[in-house]
């Protein structure tokens, strides 16, 4: 997939490379079938949506977006809602029939957006499960998401009660019978609903339907605390697509009520909303105990996932070298997991802050090293010491490897800097092609492209993961913006654009990477044949 300067798209598996210390973190994504399934779904949807609008990669943002639709429509409905038990049903019916063009649409939109929220939430869980995003430094995001499932269902189920029709009566009775199964003692809750309820009690139901979604929102806010640069709104085209779909559905199939709630005459066939109310049939077709086992079992399983996950290799976190740090905060700005805090240091100038790595939150991706201005390979020091670096894959290692590899080549070679989780670099490694793996492509300081060219490379391919598939969320985005000059540190504009290319070839897309290399080689050969090639000089330390 071509972005900044050229090329194609694909995904990863990295072979060991001489001189590259085994990382332990670098899981071979191509070997994990679940990751490949997740990638296949995303790439399938990419045929219809532009990569940056792919809903598979926007599930979290879509969840927030749907929450806001539900909130906005809910506020409108509340303005016309009669909060008494006797008047609630009539007010909803009146709104749906007399004001069908707005109130009715709002009601339907409220329901369908809620249903879509439940569906998106389950897809979001499924996607993160497939990608194995529940353990290690992600434990907080994962565990903080589990209570949100309960809150989402409590919000959705409680919403059905407010219509106070036969479905509401059935659902509230079923919920009460379900809760009564627990040996909590005291009066049976269900006794409240086998006779007409009073306005005070109905007010409690309304309070729950406002209070629980507010708790859900607070929980969603906590859920995203360990990630930075969060998109809580999907791209505009996707947002419009979803809204128009829901609107079309609201017009085509307006939400309708059942008969008014009547404890003495129960409706036998109910039009159930299976997105939320599926627990009731489960309870009646089996038993409340089995329904509890399902709910509690699923919750416990989700909570245990971080502990049940295959134990990853020890994760090393980034290390700060204050002697080489000027406190510019680019590392903190670029960290995808908010794992770097800028803090004052004793003895420093007033207002001057320095990075502190929060080890528990650090993913060990090295994006911070790529953001550090001290990581430029043009520094003349013998050892390239960055202000922040990855101990197991330092920028100094990268520079030495590059220089050693170029020195060993007979003629000008193509250098491929690739994410170790993207297309397998072994697939392109050959005579005249040098491949250097990175923990994440955004670990590459952009100046390395220019440095490689000056050191004798014929061309440089920078290979990132397929859009939306970055293990560390922002790698492809940051490298693209840095290379195009939109984000610091950037590649100098004086670098000949015909001699480097950015490709997005993920695991399994080795052909695309090979194509990117071949394409750049053809381009550089043409330049060379015209005699346009600038004179190259070897740099020191080779």
């Amino acid at each position, binding site marked *: 997939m071509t972005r900044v300067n050229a090329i194609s798209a694909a995904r990863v598996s990295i072979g060991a490379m001489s001189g590259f210390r085994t990382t332990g973190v670098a899981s071979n994504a191509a070997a994990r079938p679940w990751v490949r399934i997740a990638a296949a779904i995303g790439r399938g*949807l990419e*045929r*219809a*949506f*532009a990569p940056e609008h792919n809903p598979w990669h926007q599930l979290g943002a879509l969840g927030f977006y749907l929450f806001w639709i539900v909130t906005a429509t809910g506020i409108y409905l509340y303005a016309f809602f009669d909060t008494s038990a006797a008047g609630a049903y009539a007010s909803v019916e009146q709104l749906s029939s007399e004001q069908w063009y707005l109130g009715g649409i709002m009601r339907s939109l409220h*329901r*369908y957006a809620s*249903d*879509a929220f439940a*569906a998106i939430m389950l897809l979001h869980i499924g996607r993160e499960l497939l990608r194995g995003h529940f353990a290690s430094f992600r434990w907080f995001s994962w565990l903080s998401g589990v209570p949100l499932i309960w809150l989402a269902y409590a919000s959705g189920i409680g919403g059905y009660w407010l219509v106070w029709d036969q479905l509401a009566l*059935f659902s509230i009775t*079923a919920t009460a*019978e379900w809760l*009564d199964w627990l040996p909590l*003692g*005291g*009066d*049976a809750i*269900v*006794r409240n609903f*086998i*006779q007409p309820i009073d306005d005070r009690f109905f007010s409690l139901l309304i309070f729950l339907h406002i209070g629980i979604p507010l708790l859900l929102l607070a929980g969603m806010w906590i859920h995203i605390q360990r990630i930075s640069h969060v998109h809580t709104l999907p791209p505009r085209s996707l947002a419009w*697509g979803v809204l*128009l*779909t*829901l609107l*079309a*559905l609201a017009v*085509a*199939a307006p*939400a*309708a009520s059942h008969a008014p709630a009547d*404890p*003495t*005459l*129960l*409706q*036998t*066939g*109910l*039009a*159930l*909303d*299976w*997105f939320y109310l599926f627990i*009731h*049939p489960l309870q*009646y077709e089996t038993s409340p105990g089995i329904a509890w086992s399902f709910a509690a079992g699923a919750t416990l399983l989700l909570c245990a996932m971080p502990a049940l996950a295959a134990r990853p290799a020890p994760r090393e976190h980034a290390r700060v070298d204050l002697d080489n740090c000027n406190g510019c905060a680019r590392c903190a700005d670029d960290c995808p997991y908010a794992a770097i805090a800028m803090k004052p240091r004793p003895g420093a100038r007033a207002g001057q802050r320095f990075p502190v790595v929060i080890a528990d939150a650090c993913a060990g991706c090295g994006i911070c090293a790529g953001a550090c201005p001290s990581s430029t390979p043009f520094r003349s020091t013998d050892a390239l010491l960055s202000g922040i670096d990855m101990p197991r894959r330092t920028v100094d290692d990268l520079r030495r490897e590059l220089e050693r590899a170029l020195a060993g080549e007979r003629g000008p070679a193509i250098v491929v800097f690739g994410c170790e989780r993207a297309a397998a670099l072994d697939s392109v490694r050959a005579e005249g092609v040098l491949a250097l793996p990175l923990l994440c492509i955004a670990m590459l300081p952009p100046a390395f492209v220019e440095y490689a060219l000056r050191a004798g490379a014929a061309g440089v391919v920078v290979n990132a993961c397929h859009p939306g598939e970055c293990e560390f969320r922002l790698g492809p985005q940051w490298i693209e913006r840095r290379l195009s000059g939109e984000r610091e540190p950037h590649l100098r504009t004086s670098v000949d654009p015909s001699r480097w290319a950015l490709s997005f070839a993920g695991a399994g897309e080795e052909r695309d990477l090979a194509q990117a290399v071949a394409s750049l080689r053809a381009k550089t050969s043409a330049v060379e044949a015209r005699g346009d090639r600038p004179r190259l000089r070897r740099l020191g330390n080779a």
Partner: protein
Amino acid sequence: MIGVLRFLAQLALYVPLMVILGYFSSAPRFAHLPQDRALMRVSFSHAGERLRECHQRTPEELAKLPPNMRSQLDCPRERSPLKVEVELDGRLLLSLDVPPSGLHHDGAATVYRRIELPTGRHEIAVRMRDRPHGDFNHRATTTLDLPPGGSVLIDFDNARGGFRFRS
């Protein structure tokens, strides 16, 4: 051209989304009560009599107690469990022994049972014993015509005369 194809492809994805959301938000219908059935619920909360009678403490017993606990009347807290039986058309349908609530078994016993019944005319009899010994001391009988989806509630309120059938 690619833009048009993409638009059509997106449309092809939004339509199934619409269909899935629209269908499962109200279908398939669920019958929690079969069409030819009615529902009887037995639901009440009632504190049985104390298991043992209160008795007047003797001066000797009172002297053994701390001064602040010298109450003349000694009433054991534990209450009797309830024995509840329901008959439908002369056939025993439900027989329950309901323990009192609370750590010291001194609270009310709560009964909640839902029983599906065939529709039509039925004679329903309910009886309860709320004391440790003796025969059932609360009884009621009624005859009801239960339509499909009909619901009858058997409640108990000692202050209002005991069992009540509400339908």
